[in-house]
């Protein structure tokens, strides 16, 4: 069962919520509803599931309703309609006591502008959640210290937030959220207020932490690069509506509509797309069964200047060049092994295009994509360039 289940969740800001929801059902746009009722549609019937241990990114421009949506998930904002299930319990229907329990035990939030308490030291900030739960001082300080150490701030516990840089303040924000050991981490534009270098550093650290923590993270951002970098799955929002949910690759490769397509237009694809997306089905010859003659024939037919040599289990052995094969045929040699070259350029399926780009630019033959030494596909120079330019790429590489 998904740990977070959001069903038909809507938020209307204003006094005529009922009327506005009716208009929503009739399919009126956000602008039309604003004109008719004076009410703003914050979130428009959003539904999604987040699985345990997943980083789910909600991505949209300002005003798209993403910050409202995350606040509906821990009910900092009361939903107008719909349900939010956390571990199967509907948050929207809870009384305030049970809601407090859920917030204390299951959900922690990290804020865009850190929201640290300026009158409390770093340690006191980190222990806030535990203090609220009534855990005794010694234990909560121990946990808070551990959590501060995890984000690399063990030496700053007696400083005040105003004495720390932005990046360090957000580490405190993260430590404060983690000290509770929540199941779910809500991160509302957590890195958006940081400068680009620090932001990247924090993203890396979050991913690193996540490897050991395995929390469920709901991450809000307006930065597509950030979304693609850290998200296992991404939900794209526009005007309060979720327009597409998918893995980073799916969103890049198969945008659901023009809006998404336009959105992803400027993405640095080299960081997102991997070898798997641009590889082609390889032509091969079998090292046991085939000789130079067959190799030459296949190359001629496909117009290739080289061909990879595998065995029956697709294990990659090497490649042969057309010139060498022609020479071998002329000299009536029977064995491919004699002319096979083994200086193969190999990459894994998940190697990023940026790396492939460096490899391929002076490679004499296509780059081989392997998995456990078995040939999965080949990448030719043209495919890399086409993919970077945003042209169609095949999602599955080879369809075998």
């Amino acid at each position, binding site marked *: 069962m998904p740990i977070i289940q959001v069903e038909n969740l809507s938020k209307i800001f204003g006094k005529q919520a009922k009327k506005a929801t009716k208009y929503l059902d009739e399919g009126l746009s956000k602008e039309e509803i604003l004109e008719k009722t004076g009410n703003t549609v914050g979130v428009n019937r959003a539904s999604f599931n987040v699985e345990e241990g997943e980083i789910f990114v909600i991505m949209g421009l300002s005003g798209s309703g993403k910050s409202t949506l995350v606040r509906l998930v821990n009910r900092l904002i009361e939903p107008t309609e719909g349900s939010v299930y956390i571990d199967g319990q509907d948050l929207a229907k809870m009384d305030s006591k049970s809601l407090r329990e859920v*917030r204390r035990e299951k959900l922690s939030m990290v*804020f865009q502008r850190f929201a640290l308490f300026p009158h409390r030291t770093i340690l006191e900030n980190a222990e806030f959640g535990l203090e609220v739960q009534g855990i005794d001082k010694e234990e909560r300080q121990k946990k808070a210290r551990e959590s501060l150490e995890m984000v690399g701030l063990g030496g700053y516990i007696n400083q005040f937030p105003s004495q720390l840089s932005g990046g360090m303040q957000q580490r405190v924000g993260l430590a404060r959220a983690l000290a509770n050991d929540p199941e779910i981490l809500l991160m509302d534009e957590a890195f958006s207020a940081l400068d680009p270098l620090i932001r990247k550093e924090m993203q890396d650290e979050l991913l690193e932490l996540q490897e050991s923590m395995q929390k469920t993270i709901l991450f809000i951002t307006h930065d597509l690069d950030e979304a693609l970098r850290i998200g296992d799955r991404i939900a794209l929002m526009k005007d309060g509506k979720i327009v597409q949910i998918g893995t980073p690759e799916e969103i890049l490769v198969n945008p659901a509509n023009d809006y998404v397509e336009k959105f992803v237009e400027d993405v640095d694809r080299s960081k997102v797309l991997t070898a798997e997306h641009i590889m082609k089905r390889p032509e091969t010859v079998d090292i046991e069964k085939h000789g130079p003659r067959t190799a030459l024939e296949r190359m001629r037919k496909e117009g290739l200047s080289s061909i990879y040599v595998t065995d029956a289990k697709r294990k990659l052995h090497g490649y042969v060049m057309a010139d060498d094969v022609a020479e071998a045929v002329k000299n009536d040699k029977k064995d491919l092994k004699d002319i096979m070259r083994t200086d193969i350029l190999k990459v894994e399926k998940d190697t990023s295009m940026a790396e492939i780009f460096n490899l391929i630019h002076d490679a004499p033959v296509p780059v081989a994509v392997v998995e456990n030494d078995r040939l999965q596909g080949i990448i030719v120079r043209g495919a890399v360039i086409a993919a970077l330019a945003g042209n169609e790429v095949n999602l599955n590489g080879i369809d075998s």
Partner: protein
Amino acid sequence: MELIPKIPVAEWVSSFTDWVTDTFEPLFDFIKNDFGDFIEMFAEDWLMNIPIWLFIVVVGVIAFFISGKKLGLTAFSVVGLWFISNQELWEELMNTFTLVIFASLISVVIGVPFGIWMAKSRTVEKILTPILDFMQTMPAFVYLIPAVAFFSIGMVPGVAASVIFATPPTVRFTNLGIRQVSHELIEASDSFGTTNTQKLFKVQLPMAKKTIMAGINQTVMLALSMVVIASMIGAKGLGQTVITGLQRADVGTGFVAGLGIVILAIIIDRFTQNLNTQRGE
């Protein structure tokens, strides 16, 4: 215009005051007698029994430490207090000090909770704001009249009138201070599952402390400004000396007593301001 006879507002207020006086007589008597005795005891048996030199030294030492070990405030306090004792106004000073202390304490004890209530509810804010305006703009002399009706004359009605006049800044600033706490911090507090009480004591009040203290400073100053007015209904202290000077057209006496009030005002003001520091700044 002649069609509408004069509306008997004055009569209504008078009969209302009479009704309150009669109805709450036991309470007023209790306050008048027991609280009055306590105030008197505080001023005459305690404060006035402290040797003057000891009092001055203690104030000087406190001034030295709260002003961050600077000499200015210390020197001013010591010289100022010595001057008042030199002018043979020490007893009056102690009485005035007592009136200010009690009026301020009661104002804060009443004002802060009302400020919190006002910050938590828009309706309460809407109701209280005009009442506070009324309390502050009504000429302070007017408060003396019901104060006398309830508590006859002396220190107690002086304190009562001062409280009415001096409470509004504490209420207003408490409300303001709590409302000024940023929305994001409130969200942060809520997101960790705080109860309303936890939020108030762990986040809102500590964050509003500086503003609330500024309000308390105002309250103390307003209480001090009531000293002269309260002495018209028999509250002892420097104010009484001013009034005596006025009645006898004795400029000198009035001026010296006035100077005493100014010195006390400056000392109290600097003390409360210096105590107003916020953690983490």
